[in-house]
Structures are given as structure tokens and as C-alpha cells.
């Protein structure tokens, strides 16, 4: 089981570097650099992390093909892999529709989005193979189409927490190829205070929950909670406290991991038992230096 953390939200590059060094020393296997449209450009931060760390794998993403065409993603990877070695992965997915709208990028609707992401992922993978560059391509997935398509690349990362929901992937990918990675990438926070951790992930968990397709909402029995909240966000373009309350804390904890150190350790073992190879602790964890240090301690304590 590999441990990962995602960095790069509002932190400066030097804070991200400090966090990456602490986490690598604590035994984290992967550092992911997020690429939200209002945050620092991921490949640049990834280069800084590669320079400051010794061997951890480094992921870029989620990268949206609506912001970066395949050719641009391959250009990023070429420089990174040839300069810092075969340590890099990319995670492709549609991206946050509302955040992309704010920078003038309009996503398609429905299955066209999924097709575009898959097409881009395959182009990037083909480029890496043709150039004999060792890098991995992941799909960020929630639903069955993307999960099925992920078999044509190197792995799939789900952005929800609930392992029963995540069983969807393990059931669909029973005969996965050798080296294929199944991972989870939920909003996360780790602290000694369980309630504080749970509260810290509510906003980010709402964003993930609202991205769930209608068919999956129905499949997981969440339509009544998420449907009205989705409509409210479409009207206002923002996630408010009322919208978070509409979805409800219990539902949101199926999408986010707000835990103590021992709870994190237990979750990692459970995820492994379900057949997962990797858990990346997503934002907002990285926004707190204290949470980063606590996650590092939790990792050490869990392995000991």
C-alpha cells in the first residue's frame, strides 16, 4: 500500500517544498501537486519538489484537458522526466466546472466530457510510449465509463472515501493488468481531534459530492441529498454553508477523510484489504503545516 499526499493550494512554493521533504522523510511514497485554476501552476511546483526530494514519486493533477491539450501535458512531462528522472505521473479528469468557467474555459456536457478526458489520456500515454519516457497516466474517476477506460492507461484514482462505494472499482476491474494502480484521492485532514478533522473536510467533500453523476447518486442512494444541493449551486455558482447543510455531514463523510492518526492508519489498512494500492490525502490537509506534520507522524506510527 502506498501513501500519498497532495500539496499546492494556497501555500507558497517554499511551504510546499518543506511539506514534501517532511512527508518523504516520514515514508510517504508519493507527493501530488494539485492544479486548481487559482493556484500555482503544477509542473513548475513539481520541478521544485523533485529538486528538493530524493526519490518519492511525484504526481501532477488533476489536470483538465479543457485547460491543457494533450500536447501541452506531454511538453510538461518531457521536461520533468528528462531532467529529474522517471518519477512523474499525471492525473487527468474533467476538472472543476465552475472554477474553469471563471477562467473562460467551458466544459462540454455529459459523455462528451468523459470522451475528451479519455482521448487526452490515451494521447499522453501514447506519447510517453513512443518517446520511451517512463511516466504514468491516471484517470480521475467516479463513474463506470471512466473506470472502464482507465484499463487502457496506468491506473485510476477515485475521489471519494467510502470503501463500500469504492467497491464499484474493484468489482469492475477484477482482472486488472499487472502494474495497474487502483487508488483513492479524497479530501483529507488529519489531526488529534476527530471532530475538528471531520469539520475541516466538509467544504471540499461537498465539492466532490456535487460532482457525482445522477446515475451514481441513484446507485448510492444519494439523490435526495445531492440533487437539491446541485441545483442550488448551479443557481448561485458557489458552495455556501446552507448547501453543505443540505447535503448533510453524514453523507459528506462518504466523500472526505477527516480523521485522527490512528483512524488514518486503520483506513489505510481497510483500503488495502479492499484491493487498493494507493491513498492520496487530498486538500485541505496541505493548507495546514500542523496537519502535514501530524500526517507524517501518523504514517510513522502506523508503520511501526
Amino acid at each position, binding site marked *: 500500500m502506498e501513501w500519498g499526499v497532495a500539496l499546492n*493550494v*494556497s501555500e*507558497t*512554493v*517554499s511551504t510546499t517544498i518543506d511539506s514534501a521533504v517532511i512527508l518523504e522523510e516520514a515514508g510517504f511514497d508519493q507527493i501530488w501537486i494539485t492544479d*486548481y*485554476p*487559482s*493556484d*500555482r*501552476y503544477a*509542473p*513548475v*511546483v513539481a*520541478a*521544485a519538489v523533485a*529538486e528538493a526530494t530524493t526519490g518519492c514519486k511525484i504526481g501532477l493533477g488533476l489536470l483538465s484537458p479543457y*485547460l491543457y491539450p494533450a*500536447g*501541452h501535458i506531454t*511538453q*510538461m512531462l*518531457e*521536461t*520533468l522526466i*528528462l*531532467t529529474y528522472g522517471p518519477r512523474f505521473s499525471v492525473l487527468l479528469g474533467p476538472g472543476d466546472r465552475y472554477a474553469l*468557467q*471563471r*477562467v*473562460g*474555459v467551458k466544459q462540454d456536457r455529459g459523455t462528451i466530457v468523459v470522451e475528451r478526458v479519455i482521448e487526452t489520456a490515451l494521447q499522453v500515454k501514447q506519447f510517453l510510449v513512443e518517446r520511451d519516457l517512463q511516466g504514468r497516466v491516471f484517470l480521475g474517476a467516479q463513474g463506470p465509463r471512466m473506470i472502464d477506460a482507465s484499463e487502457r492507461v496506468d491506473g485510476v484514482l477515485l475521489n471519494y472515501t467510502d470503501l463500500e462505494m469504492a467497491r464499484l472499482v474493484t468489482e469492475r476491474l477484477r482482472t486488472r493488468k499487472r502494474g495497474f494502480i487502483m487508488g483513492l484521492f479524497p479530501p483529507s485532514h488529519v489531526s488529534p481531534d476527530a471532530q475538528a478533522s471531520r469539520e475541516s473536510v466538509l467544504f471540499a467533500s461537498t465539492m466532490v459530492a456535487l460532482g457525482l453523476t445522477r446515475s451514481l447518486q441513484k446507485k448510492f442512494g444519494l439523490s435526495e441529498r445531492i440533487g437539491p444541493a446541485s441545483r442550488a449551486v448551479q443557481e448561485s455558482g458557489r458552495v455556501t454553508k446552507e448547501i453543505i447543510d443540505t447535503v448533510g455531514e453524514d453523507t459528506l463523510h462518504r466523500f472526505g477523510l477527516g480523521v485522527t492518526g490512528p483512524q488514518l492508519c486503520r483506513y489505510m489498512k481497510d483500503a488495502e484489504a479492499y484491493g487498493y494500492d494507493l491513498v492520496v490525502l487530498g486538500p485541505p490537509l496541505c493548507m495546514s503545516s500542523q496537519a502535514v506534520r501530524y500526517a507524517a507522524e501518523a504514517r510513522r506510527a502506523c508503520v511501526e
Partner: protein
Amino acid sequence: MYRVSLGITTSMSVETTGWIAAGADSLGADGVWIGEDIGVGQDTNTLAASVILQSKRVRVGTGIIPIAPHNTSTIARASIALQEMANGRYALGIGIGGVQDIQRIGITLRRPVTELRRTVNILRALWSGQSVSKVTELHNLREYQLRLREAVDIPVFFGVRGPKMLALAGEISDGVILSGPRDYLKKAVEMVDSAARKAGRDPSGVEKIVWVPTVPTFRGMKERTGRKIVALIVADTPSVVLDMLDLNRDDLERIRSTVSREGPKAAAAMVSREILDAFAICGSKEYMVDRFDDLSRTGATEIVLGPPYSGEWREAIREILQEVASRRGG
């Protein structure tokens, strides 16, 4: 004394750009400028990051990133990350890009000067932490804001050629990256300075970087390589610039039509020594640094050395920078 920098482009191999990045400090260069060949080779910002990370002293700048093919938000947030990593050594060079280059990827701008001005205003607002809403021919930002904890200062350089663009550079930029024939460069500096004075600025506060092809024939690079490159440049130079030159216009037109019909190799033979000298710096290290000195006297504050890189280019760079250092008394 003027500064001397090294120029690289995204279409160069990682091995070449890596050698220059790693060696820039010890070679005695003052900076590294990175030109973007649209859609080709390395990602400009990632390459800039690797140059910053491999150096400690030199200024690292993009020279230039064409604004139209990139989302302004990407330019803004890449620049923030680069400046934080560089501790103030980073400079953002932007421009419209070669007309043919951007047309090739399906982009046309009706009001390029206006859009460049807007881009600078947007970038500076974003870097100071403001929320920006702007819908124009090129931009479509709605309540967009970077997640910054404090404002970040990033100098903005323009890579531009036409008179209106040069005037805009004098008015609002921190510096201008100039390329073109020698007579034009002199006039371009005058236009930038005049616009700066008109805007109430001290012209010396606007840096003038000159980046022309350098062909060090004393270390294996062939003069015909220089002639081929100059043929290409003549073909790509706007008529408004050619009109400013004291060169035979018929000769230049013959080169242009031959490049377009048969390619630069065929046109190379038509590039006379006079035309070669006007568009490139080609010769021994002493001759080349003499030309740098000439450019400095016409107002250049920094000269960019290379590309092309061929022959024993590593040795050539080392020797040219040593020649510059010896004239500085170093």
C-alpha cells in the same frame, strides 16, 4: 557596462538547455532567456523552473511567451510559482508572437496592442491579489482571483516589434526584448525611450534587451548556417521594419520570395555580408563582442547570446563570455 545573457528555446533538447542552466552562473552570464517555439519541445514554464532550480545568481526570463495560445490564468499562476522559486530572479517576457506562428494555430487578433495592454493590467491586478472580471477578444475572466497570501512583484518584459507595440512597451513595461536588423534596433530603442518620456517615465528604467542570432564562426559554426538563419528572419520580418533599413529592398524581396518558394537553404546564397551583418552577429569572439559594444552604444542594456548552437558551441559561449569579462576588467 551592459549585461550579457544566454538564450535558449523550448525546441532545444533537455541536454542542451540543462547544460546552459547548470553552467550559466559559472560561465559569468547575467541571465538566461527562454523563447517559446509554439507547441514544440519543452513546456516554457517547466523549462524556466528547471533553469531557476539549476542556477543561483542569474536572472531567468521567458522571452517570450506568446499570450494568445495560453490562458491568461496559466501565465499568471506559473509566474507566481516561478518568482517564488527564484527569489526575485524571474522576469516574465510576453508578446503576441510571430504573426505566421499564431495564424498557423488558428489564432488571429484584431487589436493586438490593446490586448497586450489588457493582459499586463490583468496580470498585475492578479499578482496584487485582486479579483478580475474581464471579457475581451482574448480574455474571459469572471471574478477570477489567485489564492495568494501576499502580493508578488514580477517584472514584465515585452517582445515586440511594431511602432505601436514599442510605444506601449515604453509606456507600461519594465523592459523590452528587441530583435531585428541593426538600423531597426537603434530606431526601436529611440521609440521606446520617447514613449517612456511621454508617459512621464525615466527611459533608463525600461531595460532594452537585444536578442539577435549570434554565429561564432571561430568555433566550428559555419557562416552559411548564419546566412540560412538570416534568410528565414528576412522572410519573417514585417515590411514596416524592412522599410526602416538602409539595405537594398530588391535584394531583401528576392530573399523573401526564394524562402517562400524553395526554403531558407536556397535563399542563403543571396544573403550578402552586408545583410548578414545587419541581421546577425557573425565572426570571431573579438568581432562579436565589438558588435555587442556597438549595440550598447545605441542603447541596449543587455545582449542575448545564441542560438543557434552548433559546432563547438559550448567552447564558443565560454570564450565569448570570457572576452566580455576581460573588457569589463574582470
